């Protein structure tokens, strides 16, 4: 039975976590940047519309409230994406650990 090498395991765990984080966080960064730009642009449209009268009293409050809602919804989405990243990292680590245990023990345990 081969000995478990803790250092090798740590390196494998780091690699597994990094692979997930690299991919997922780059998606999160791109999405966040796009959203922040779009929300800033929306503020400009609403301000411009109020100034030139195309946004009248009947929709003005709606657009102003929507600016708040889109920021909150954006943060809500980010929290949801973060939960997926955490799940991915956790499962990647579990996979590496079980592989290592299988190698050391000679068993063929299936990750539950």
């Amino acid at each position, binding site marked *: 039975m081969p*000995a*478990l090498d*803790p250092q090798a395991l740590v390196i494998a765990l780091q690699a597994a976590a990094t692979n997930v984080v690299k*991919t*997922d966080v780059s*998606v999160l960064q791109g*999405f966040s940047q*796009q*959203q922040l730009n*779009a*929300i800033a*642009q*929306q503020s400009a*449209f*609403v301000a*411009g*519309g109020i100034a*030139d009268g*195309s*946004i*009248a009293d*009947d*929709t003005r409050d*709606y*657009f102003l409230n*929507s600016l708040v*809602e*889109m*920021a*909150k*919804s*954006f*943060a*809500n*989405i*980010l*929290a*949801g*994406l*973060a*939960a*997926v990243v*955490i*799940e*991915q990292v*956790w*499962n990647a*680590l*579990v*996979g590496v*650990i*079980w592989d*290592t*245990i299988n190698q*050391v*023990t000679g068993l063929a345990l299936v*990750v*539950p």
Partner: protein
Amino acid sequence: MKTPARKILLAALLLVAACTTQLAPAYDQAIVSGLASANQDVQTLFASLGTGVGKETYGTRVESYTHIIGELNALEIQAKSRPVPGSDSLAEANKVLSANGIGQLTNDPQFTSFPSARAIHDISVTISTMRDADQGSGIHGDELKAFQNQASIFLTQAITYENFLKRGEK
């Protein structure tokens, strides 16, 4: 490594690696396809408006509005109908984001474990409000741009989240 130490490490690993976890809903191809279809319908509606429209031509757009709003409302129900495992984890992620200065979500009464359903609902309300404005006085200038940009923001939120649920296959 000495045997006792090895046993302790194995026991610790087994504890840590109790099982895989699921913290978000399963990917649903039907919802992704539905969002793609709704996105196309919304963009087609905006393309048909050009730089602005008057209320006298509203009648030609009634069917498009009705179709899109119904489509979005059905998608919202679909997105909300999935089981959400570990919904507490989303609240925890929310706390981490708030602690890092991204919003004060803990005070957001609308905070939900169905974030894409919230965005889909917001798109539907956007299109409904736009329909009313179109019927009342037509849509022009920055108001039209604001409706379009707002719909695109909420669509992007919903589409990004649903695609992200595909996990490793992104």
